[in-house]
């Protein structure tokens, strides 16, 4: 069964301005009256907002209850389609629907319902607060769901780890015509390369050294290209190897424009070897080599901004992504893959580590989301042609304290340290925004 696009409602962003209803009424009923809209935002009487509109149910009750075969779920779009010619106006659909998704428009004398405006919903366009969002995540499922999962089942990541998710999605998308490098770290640690003569993937895979992922891939890629074969060179690396001991070789490959997709899963340290500090570990963080004690308050330096350094190389493509924003990640994966056909594509994914960061395993994606929504990390993409662009700008960031409080490695922070982090975020936001508006 395919997945479909959907209109999501974020009640916390809604200010009940009614623009969505007006836009819908205008688009669908040539009327300015919100009562003629097929979407209704309403106060739920408990201090929040609710939404009455068709949810385009997967197994729609209205369709089953229509005696006239006037409703059907379109297998391609997922829209529950209403057929004026078949409808007999019996209103049984309004009985069947528990969500007020289809109702009588007295002005026209028949039922009406949302149809997503054919893929460009007027309500979403009209929403200025981001409360309504047209989610196209379904594309991932539909396009990638059918693609083969090229990792073996049962990779042994820690409970709640997002890295397996990122790995599987990435390799699915990149496909079987790939040589995969998995330098030492969590990726091979969970079995991606394999053990004792057994492989962990269905593509050719190898352990480079922690230090030479990019040049090994470069050798592979260049030789295949010389032989006239188009093979994707893919690295699934960690932040430690990339930013610290492997930085020279990464930088060299980027400068030479070696054609590969270099994906760094940034869990802010050496999480596989026991939570040691890397240059990507943020200021103040506890790690096993920046322990918290009488003489030490955690890491005393800010994190190296590795993706920005890669922009400095003018790579064919550089982007940051987050495990909590998979649509964004997928779009960037597409761009990176494309760019890797003619240059060095670098994708930096912020990836919270339940084990090493000290938070409950069920909160992984939530922590990732909070990092983005507080601007602790920022999502952007860069190419030499288009410059740097924020893909998920956060204009009204959540207080970073909320993020820091969700993560155990910051439990000890003093107000002074938090102020330092806030200051650093402000600097970072300013720097990225400068880049984003800078002339090419």
């Amino acid at each position, binding site marked *: 069964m395919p997945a479909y696009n959907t209109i999501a409602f974020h009640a916390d962003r809604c200010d009940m301005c009614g623009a969505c209803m007006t836009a819908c009424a205008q688009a669908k009923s040539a009327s300015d009256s919100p009562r003629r809209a097929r979407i209704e935002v309403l106060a739920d009487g408990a201090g929040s907002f609710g939404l009455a509109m068709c949810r385009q149910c997967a197994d729609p009750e209205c369709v089953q209850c229509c005696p006239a075969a006037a409703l059907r779920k379109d297998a391609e779009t997922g829209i529950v389609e209403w057929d004026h010619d078949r409808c007999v106006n019996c209103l049984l659909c309004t009985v069947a629907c528990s969500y007020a998704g289809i109702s009588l428009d007295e002005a026209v004398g028949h039922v009406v319902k949302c149809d997503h405006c054919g893929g460009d919903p007027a309500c979403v366009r009209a929403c200025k607060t981001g409360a309504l969002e047209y989610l196209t995540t379904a594309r991932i499922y539909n396009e990638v769901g059918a693609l083969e999962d090229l990792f073996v089942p049962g990779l042994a990541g820690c409970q709640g780890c997002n890295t397996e998710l990122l790995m599987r999605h990435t390799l699915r998308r990149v496909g079987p015509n790939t040589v995969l490098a998995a330098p030492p770290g969590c990726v091979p640690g969970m079995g991606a390369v394999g053990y004792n003569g057994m492989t962990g993937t269905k593509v*050719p895979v190898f352990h480079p050294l922690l230090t030479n992922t990019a040049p090994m891939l470069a050798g592979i890629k260049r030789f295949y290209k*010389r032989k006239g074969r188009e093979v994707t060179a893919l690295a699934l690396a960690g932040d430690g190897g990339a930013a610290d001991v492997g930085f020279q*070789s990464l930088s060299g490959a980027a400068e030479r424009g070696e054609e590969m997709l270099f994906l760094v899963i940034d869990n802010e340290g050496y999480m596989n070897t026991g939570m040691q500090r890397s240059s990507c570990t943020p200021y103040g963080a506890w790690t096993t080599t920046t322990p918290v004690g009488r003489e030490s308050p955690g890491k005393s330096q800010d994190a190296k901004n590795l993706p920005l350094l890669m922009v400095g190389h003018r790579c064919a493509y550089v982007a940051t992504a987050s495990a909590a924003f998979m649509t964004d990640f997928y779009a960037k994966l597409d761009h990176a893959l494309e760019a890797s056909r003619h240059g060095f594509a670098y994708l930096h994914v912020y990836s919270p580590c339940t084990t090493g960061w000290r938070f409950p395993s069920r909160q992984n994606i939530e922590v990732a989301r909070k990092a983005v929504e507080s601007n602790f990390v920022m999502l952007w993409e860069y190419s030499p042609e288009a410059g740097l662009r924020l893909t998920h700008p956060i204009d009204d960031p959540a207080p970073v304290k909320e993020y820091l409080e969700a993560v155990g490695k910051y439990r000890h922070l003093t107000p002074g340290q938090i102020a330092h982090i806030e200051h650093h975020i402000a600097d970072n936001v300013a720097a990225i925004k400068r880049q984003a508006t800078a002339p090419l």
Partner: protein
Amino acid sequence: MSAAAPARRFLVCDGNEAAALAVALARVDMVAVYPITPQSSLVEYLAKYIADGRLQAELVNAEGEHSVLSVLQGAALAGARTFTATSGPGLAFMFEPYLRTPGMRLPIVMSIVTRDTLTPQSVWGGHQDAMSVRDVGWVQMYCETVQEVLDTVIIAYRVAERHDVMLPVNVCHDGNYLSYGTARIEPPDQNVVDTFLGTPDVNWHVALDPERPMAVDPLTGGAGGAGPAMFVRYRRGQCAGMRDALDAIREAHEEWGRLTGRHHAPLIERYRMDDAEFSIVTLGSMTGAAKDAIDEARERGRRVGLVKVKTFRPFPAAAIAEALRGHGAFGVVDRSVDFAWNCGPLYREVLTSLHGITPAAPSQSFIGGLAGADLTVEHFESVIDTVGQLQNAGARDTVWLNAQD
């Protein structure tokens, strides 16, 4: 009309250019380069050949030797014939991937244009760099002449790519003396080299190809399951490859001699040893001066011979034992230091080869030619004099040949 024999072609060049010529003749697929004295001109020649289209190969200007070898590892894993060269500090920086190459059974050929190691600071020749990595698992051959440099680089591919070997090969030629010293050489015809090397033999057991996916080097070892035995199997396989390399080197030299008429000694060369009553053992370019000294000593009536070691790894212990047995005292001249034993490393290895042979011959370690110091006929005359006077076996202090120079 009678068929005229084709005119022989000669040219005058240095050892670095000779090595580069050999690489071009071997039709290498990929060359990765980084400058380091004294090998820089070697890769400059290669870059020029590639720029001129004389060598159809991928040139990777890596940002350091670590990546140089890493790039070649990748290319070799994809089935490429590869080459690079390095010296001293470059080799040290390359050490991490260098250490790993033999275990991956990658038939990479790399010239070590030998250089003494830091510190004291020096940019001159000496075997200390190559000797420092002697036990990592690469095949290592030392050259005596510019011609031998050219021929050995070509021979190295045949050895490395043989299926029962599949190991990386270092062709060592002395910095300064061979890198910059010019001589007349006779380059082989391309078709001779093509015949000799044939199609590159890809080790499909270690290959990264989406058309035949496999995991290269998954984690193994440990103390349980299939790990320990599997790790031992890999290690023993590597040892078997090294053992078989001795025969491969012999075979390759014989075939090369048959095709070109140039018969280099594959493992060791015995020089005027038949009736020798004592001998000296040499390695690399010093051998020329040593042979002159032997000839002069013979003229003076000294029954002295010489054994030149060409193949240092795997160590040709049986051949050396056979060569020295029954010929009395011997002295070994090293261009590097074995710090643990306070002698030359070749000396120690020669001693080990003779273990169990009685009576034990008197012997002496000489160390000379460090950091570009000259080893002249006069030096070898003193060596011959010293060895000729050795009376009985037993430990002796090392003689440092350039201590007074």
